[in-house]
């Protein structure tokens, strides 16, 4: 569902992403760990075609994202670190707007169902989102993915700044999405959450994917150890 082949992004002499080769199939969650500037967000931006790759390719559902931007986007939903919605509109209106401009129209009852499925409290449906917490806004983002029938979910540090309860709820939502055969790529700093929900875990440093594990191949303790070692070691291939 998500595939990159030798995906590279350079800004002058600086290499933000170096020959990334990953594949995430339906019902898989790849959690990319790494410090700031490791290339996690660059990977997501390339998959969203927000920036053009220097070389290599990125595919969503078998389609090259550069060549088919409008064809790949109906399949995906993106939730950034801070999902910003229109503050003067309600949750339902925001959902209706983002779906509507993409060509998908739903009744109010259907929109409410999507928000319910995403775990948003009913009393918040008709409230302006300017009063929403980050966790509530992200639930609207998940509702957007559910409504779009997204096959791909791209998450850029979605749990940073969330309290443990909200973070746990969000993790549960992702598991449900995974069970619904959605391919998920999540960039995160949260090793515990990555181990808990990821089917695969990658560790990135300076634009290079240094480690790639299946979840059952590594324990949380070892993952933390490898992560810390990777972050402190000099930049050598592993």
């Amino acid at each position, binding site marked *: 569902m998500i595939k990159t082949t030798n995906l590279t992004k350079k800004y002058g002499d600086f290499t933000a992403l170096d020959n990334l080769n990953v594949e995430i199939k339906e019902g898989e969650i790849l959690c990319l760990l790494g410090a700031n500037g490791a290339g996690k967000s660059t990977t997501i931006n390339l998959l*969203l075609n*927000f*920036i053009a790759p220097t070389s290599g390719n990125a595919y969503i559902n078998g389609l090259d994202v550069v060549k088919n931007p409008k064809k790949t986007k109906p399949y*995906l939903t993106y939730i*950034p670190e801070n*999902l910003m919605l229109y503050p003067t*509109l309600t949750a339902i209106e925001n959902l209706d707007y*983002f779906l509507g*401009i993409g060509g998908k129209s739903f009744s109010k009852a259907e929109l409410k169902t999507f928000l319910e499925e995403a775990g948003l409290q009913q009393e918040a449906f008709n409230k*302006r989102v300017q009063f929403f917490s980050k966790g509530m806004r992200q639930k609207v983002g998940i509702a957007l993915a559910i409504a779009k029938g997204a096959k791909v979910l791209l998450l850029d540090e979605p749990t940073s700044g969330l309290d443990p309860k909200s973070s746990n709820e969000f993790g549960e939502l992702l598991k449900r999405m995974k069970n619904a055969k959605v391919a998920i790529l999540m960039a995160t700093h949260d090793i515990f959450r990555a181990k808990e929900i990821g089917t695969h875990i990658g560790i990135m440093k300076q634009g290079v994917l240094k480690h790639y594990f299946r979840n059952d191949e590594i324990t949380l303790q070892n993952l933390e150890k490898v992560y810390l070692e990777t972050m402190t070691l000099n930049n050598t291939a592993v």
Partner: protein
Amino acid sequence: MFRYNFKYELKSLLRSRWLLLLSLLLLIVVLFAGYNGKEKVKERTQELKNVVLESNTNDAAMALVLDSIESGLQVSVNPRRMPNAPMNVAYNYPRVAAIPVAPLTFISTGQSDLFTHFIKPSAYGDSFSLDYSELANPIQLLFGSFDLSFVIIYILPLIIIAFSYNILSEEKEYGSLKLLASQPISIYQWIVQKTALRFFWLTLITLAVITITLLFFGFDFKTNFSAFLQLISLVCAYILFWFTIVLLVNLVVNNSAKNAVSLLAIWVFVILIIPAVVGQLANSFYPIPSRTKMITEVRELKEELSSKQDKILDNFLRDHPEYASKDGNSNYSFWHKYIASQELVEEELKPLISSYEDQLTKQQNWVRLWQYSSPAILMQQSFNNLAHTSTTHYQSYRNQVALFSKEWRNFFKPMLYGNKNFTTNDYKKLPSFTYEPPINSSVLLKVVVLLIFSVIFIFIGKQVFVKKIKKGTIIS
């Protein structure tokens, strides 16, 4: 996408109270500007009414005296005002040559602060072009008039800037742009639609407010519908021009603070600097000779000619034997000499006056040529044309008055030299002045020019967008 943009942009604007604020602000400012303009027009109309009334009263008194004289009655009138002497009528009972108020005069004061609106050209003196009895206080000229044209040309762009300077950058800074860009839409199409919607709402409010103002101040839409259409097409094109600039700056700069500064700099450049430079260059390239110097020269010339009036009269009578006295009486009055000298005075003054007029015409042509360099000049010229307050209108009026002045003098000439009395019958034949406005240059051309500017900005905006999307700097 358009349906959803329309629906939710409207909701957002209503909930943020932008539309309400805009409507109120524009209504207050435009109504006040309309009131200001109307007050000036009212003052001018009243002044004209008074002058016409005074002239009519004088005429009625003259007709009465004339009738008494013709009936053989004794009249007690100052001999210098006795109406049976043709030159007394020519001097004491001039007609009013006025430039009337046009239906849209109140929207643009234009040059009306600088020029007079009525003249009473009599047989004596030709200095009507130097008549500035109605000249406004120069302090007011310094600051300009707060009329509708001022509001539209100067203030409306500032409102557009305040309304939309961050139309794209806000989305980027707030973080919603990434969510938008992850939808299967074209961000360029989206921003164009959003700008178009703001253009639509602001234009709608502005036109509504202008229409209300015109209605409030008694504008007759039925008879002046064409002028109204021209006015609103100019306003729409001007608003579009500014919105395309806002769009372009959003695409090029894409940072709210920098957008605001850039747009204000553009406003200063387009509205203040270009017109000032064009005006200054017109003065430098085609300097107008000193008016004081001209008046002094005119006086010197007249003095010189008046000392030779006997000789001039001889020459005049040689050139016009039909005016020579048949009974050999060579006792000619002041008027005989004065009227005889006028042809020569006009001839001698022609180069002096025309050097002034020529420079003025060259300046006007220069401004007319460079009006396309700034929409502000273009709009001011168009508004003045619609309001009949342009320099062209006043120049045409002056020329018409000059012709009328000659016609007035010539009417009395045969009576003066033929030693004939002025009669009631002559009174009925007195020439009168009717102002004919010059043919206005087409507003359509100016609207087209503004549209061309807008299309160019949209085109450049698209190129910038494509480049920035490739670089990835629009969204990230």
